[in-house]
C-alpha cells in the first residue's frame, strides 16, 4: 500500500479480502456485486430520444449519432477492472461499447481537454490524452445485456483507468475545450484527475 503507515488501531486485524491483490489500488476493497452511486434520481431515457454529440471548442457540432446510427457502429467487448472513489473495486467487468477512437476519427479537434456531459447537469472533465488510443468507450451493454438505467443506461462513458465517477452515466456527448473545466464532482471536492493508483480521491491528493 502506498499510504503512509498510520497509528495502529488496537484489536484491528482486517479481513484482507483481496487487499494483497496486485489489482486492487490503495485504500480500495474488492466487491462482487455492482454498487450504484448517483447524486440524484435515476433518469429513464428512451433510446429513441437519446443522441450522442461531439461539440468543438467553438461550440459548433462536430458529429451527432441517434440511437440507431450509434448502435450500427462497430462495438467491442471490454473486460476491465473498475475502481470507485467510494472505495469499492470490481474485477473483470465485461462491457460492450463503441471505442471513442471510432467516434473521434476524423473529427478530433485541437484541444487538450474534454468535458463529458450527461442527461441532467452532470459533467466530468478529462484530458483528451486519457480518452484516446484505446482508453475510453461509450458503453451500452454490461455483462451480456443492455446497460441498466441505474448503471447509466442507455449509454455511459467508460474510462477504466480513472476513478469511476469519470465514467459519466447517461452520457449525451463530449465538448472539447482548450482550457480544463472541472466538472460536477471536481468542483465539489473531488480530484481533478482521479488516478486510483495514486489514490487521487480529493482536492490536493
Amino acid at each position, binding site marked *: 500500500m502506498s499510504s503512509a503507515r498510520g497509528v495502529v488501531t488496537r484489536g484491528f486485524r482486517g479481513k484482507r479480502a483481496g487487499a494483497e491483490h496486485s489489482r486492487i489500488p490503495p485504500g480500495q476493497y474488492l466487491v462482487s456485486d455492482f*454498487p450504484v452511486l448517483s447524486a440524484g434520481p435515476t433518469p429513464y431515457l428512451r433510446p429513441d430520444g437519446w443522441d450522442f454529440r461531439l461539440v468543438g471548442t467553438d461550440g459548433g457540432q462536430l458529429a451527432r449519432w441517434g440511437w440507431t446510427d450509434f448502435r450500427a457502429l462497430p462495438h467491442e467487448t471490454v473486460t476491465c477492472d473498475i475502481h470507485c472513489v467510494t472505495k469499492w473495486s470490481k474485477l473483470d467487468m465485461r462491457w460492450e461499447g463503441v471505442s471513442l477512437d471510432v467516434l473521434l476519427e476524423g473529427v478530433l479537434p485541437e484541444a487538450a481537454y474534454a468535458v463529458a456531459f450527461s442527461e441532467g447537469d452532470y459533467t466530468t472533465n478529462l484530458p483528451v490524452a486519457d480518452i484516446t488510443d484505446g482508453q475510453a468507450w461509450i458503453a451500452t451493454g454490461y455483462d451480456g445485456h443492455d446497460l441498466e438505467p441505474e448503471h447509466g443506461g442507455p449509454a455511459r462513458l467508460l474510462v477504466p483507468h480513472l476513478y469511476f465517477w469519470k465514467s459519466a452515466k447517461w452520457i449525451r456527448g463530449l465538448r472539447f475545450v482548450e482550457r480544463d473545466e472541472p466538472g460536477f464532482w471536481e468542483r465539489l471536492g473531488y480530484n481533478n484527475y482521479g488516478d486510483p493508483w495514486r489514490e487521487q480521491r480529493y482536492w490536493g491528493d
Partner: protein
Amino acid sequence: MARAAVLGRLTWRVVTVGAVVQESERAVTLTLESEERITHRPGQHVDVRLTAEDGYQAERSYSIASAPDDPSVSLTVERIPDGEVSPWLTTVAEPGDQFEVRGPVGGYFVWDDSDPAPVLLVAGGSGVVPLMSMIRHRRRRDLHTRMRLLYSARGEPDLLYRTELDELAGDGFDAVYTLTREAPPEWEGYRRRIDAPMLAEVRPAERGKGTVFVCGPTPFVEATANSLVLLGHEPARVKTERFGPSGGGS
C-alpha cells in the same frame, strides 16, 4: 492546481474515541476527539482508516451524525455482518482507542441552511445518520426552516435516535415513521414500504417546491427517488445518497 493549494490537502488525522453509545442492536455512535477540530457541513461524511499491527490498512466512509456546532464529531455506524471496518467500530472500539479519519468529504449531499425552502428528509435504516446531522443543525442554530423526516425501518427497535427525534419535534420539525416488517399492536405510524401515496401525504404542501434528501440502501433510494420524480419533484432538487450491501460502509 491553484485551487487545490488554497483548499489544502485532506490529510489523515488521528482521532481518539470519546464516548461509545449503543443506538440499536447493530448501530453504535462513536464520539471522536481530535487535536484539530473537524468542521463539516450537515450531510457530509468522513473516510475512516484502521491500521493493523503489521501495517495492513482498511478504509471506509461513514456519515457524520453530529451537528457542525456540536463540541465533537460523532459517527453512527451500523455493523455489516461480513464487513471489515464496521465490526471493529461497533463491537471492539472503546473510549481511548485511536484510528484515523480524513475529511469531511462530499459537497453535494449537504443542506444549505440559507435556503428557506422546506426540506423533506427520507431515510431508510441507517440512512438516517447524515439526515440527523441536518436535523440537529437546524435545532442548534435555532433555524425555522420547515423540515420533516420520513423514516423507514424494519421494526421499532431499529429506529435510531427515536427519543431525541421525539424531543426535537415541534416548531416546524416532525418525524413520521414507517415500519416495514414488524410493528407493535399499538403502532400508530405507517406499516409498509415507502411508496408514492405515502410520499404524497407527508411531503410539504407546496408540492415539489422543497428540497428532498434521500439516504438509504440502493433499492430504497431508487424506489423513493423514482416516486418523487413521478410526483413532480424536480430531479435536481432530489439529492440522494445510496449505500449497501457493498456500496457504502461495510
